[in-house]
């Protein structure tokens, strides 16, 4: 039945960020900000890593006790709040949820475990490659393979079901919680854990981190920037829209690193990375598949949380839990290190390898069991 008669005859306004130029601008801007964050103190090739930053937050809250990765990274709550402000401004804030939340939680947890076996989310994989860490090639290959498997499920009717409108406080929960985290990041109460060495001790200043997070949150909400979606749309529909934004993100960081003489172009002993290629691939196959089944990369899940999407916030909660599990049960990989000039190759331990296998099986079961026939 047509709904013509009931339609409000108001066309949706032009949105620059919905255009090809807009997504390229968004990707380039996010890349530039990632460079500035690394220059301002965040770890090398980790100006922004959504998975790593969530892992650091888990550490700051005492959910794990890995002393080198504990810091309440202000970028993540600022991402949510930037997205929230953009969604409010453009009337896109909608309190919603109820689309298979427990499955989203599980996917979030395994996505994080996969990312921490590789040592980075899709954002960081791109930053690592742009910095000359060639191990990122195997990680990105794994990511593409995982998303490719997810696309096969999508083509065959995979769905987590419809979300439903919720009362406003449900959608406001994520921005309010993140505002609380941001206040804690600023106030630095004594009960928070904070690394004094390792990646968790490498930080851009609070003001720079917060401003960067707010800008990225705003721009990503408007542009729908999503690294997983870039691969998915390319595989599913030959649609280059999001990929052109990701390419701009990569290109800006690559040029920045080459200009600074910071492009390494090597496999061994890269910053917070390991050169066990099989586990780089498999870790990111798991992460890519979980992100594809969950409907977005970690960044996109964070930005959707700011729009009032409780399902995305549940995925975020899964990632936070996955980070805690990864470090409490030794699932995360160790990076390569140099000792007396000799390379000690890192990578996952037995627990991490088993967790990746279990995660892949669980994701495949979810993919096969959550299918429906298109009408």
């Amino acid at each position, binding site marked *: 039945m*047509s*709904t013509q008669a009931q*339609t409000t005859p108001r066309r949706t306004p032009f*949105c620059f960020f919905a255009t090809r130029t807009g997504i390229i601008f968004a990707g380039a801007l996010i890349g530039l900000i990632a460079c500035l964050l690394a220059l301002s103190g965040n770890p090398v090739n980790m100006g922004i890593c959504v998975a790593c930053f969530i892992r650091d937050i888990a550490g700051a809250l005492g959910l794990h006790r890995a002393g080198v990765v504990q810091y309440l990274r202000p970028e993540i709550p600022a991402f949510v709040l930037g997205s929230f402000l953009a969604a409010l401004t*453009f009337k896109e804030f909608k309190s919603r949820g109820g*689309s298979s939340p427990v499955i989203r939680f599980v996917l979030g947890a395994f996505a994080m475990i996969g990312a921490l076996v590789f040592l980075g989310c899709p954002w960081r994989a791109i930053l690592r490659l742009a910095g000359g860490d060639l191990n990122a090639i195997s990680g990105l290959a794994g990511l593409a393979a995982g998303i490719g498997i997810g696309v096969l499920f999508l083509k065959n009717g995979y769905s987590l079901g419809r*979300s439903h409108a919720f009362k406003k406080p449900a959608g406001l929960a994520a921005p309010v919680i993140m505002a609380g985290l941001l206040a804690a990041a600023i106030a630095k109460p004594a009960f928070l854990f904070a690394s004094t060495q390792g990646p968790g001790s490498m930080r851009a200043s609070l003001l720079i981190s917060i401003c960067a997070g707010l800008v990225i949150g705003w721009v990503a909400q408007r542009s729908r920037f999503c690294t997983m979606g870039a691969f998915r*749309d390319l595989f599913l529909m030959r649609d280059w829209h999001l990929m052109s934004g990701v390419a701009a993100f990569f290109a800006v960081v690559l040029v920045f690193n080459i200009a600074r003489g910071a492009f390494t172009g090597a496999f061994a002993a890269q910053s917070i990375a390991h050169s066990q290629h099989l586990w780089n691939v498999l870790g990111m196959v798991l992460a890519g598949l979980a992100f594809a089944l969950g409907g977005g990369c970690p960044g996109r899940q964070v930005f959707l949380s700011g729009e009032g999407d409780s399902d995305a916030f549940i995925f975020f909660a899964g990632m936070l839990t996955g980070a805690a599990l990864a470090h409490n049960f030794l699932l995360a990989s160790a990076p390569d290190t140099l000792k007396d000039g000799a390379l000690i190759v890192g990578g996952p331990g037995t627990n991490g390898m088993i967790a990746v296998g279990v995660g892949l099986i669980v994701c495949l079961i979810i993919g096969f069991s959550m299918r429906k026939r*298109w009408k």
Partner: protein
Amino acid sequence: MKHIDARGLSCPEPVIQARRAASDLSAGDQLEILVDAGAARDNVLRTVSSLGCAAEAAEYEGGFRIVVTKKQR
């Protein structure tokens, strides 16, 4: 006019449904798609445009109504 209610579905499901339906349209045929998120609206508009269709979105019941018309060759 064929009708798809993709409200509540997360991307890329609205796009997959729209793409399948738009691919079956003949010149002059119309398709109505309801979505409830700006991202879904943008993605559907971009997808059907790439399939040789004209499309217009308007606000509708807190979401969006997209009318797709297959162009003459």
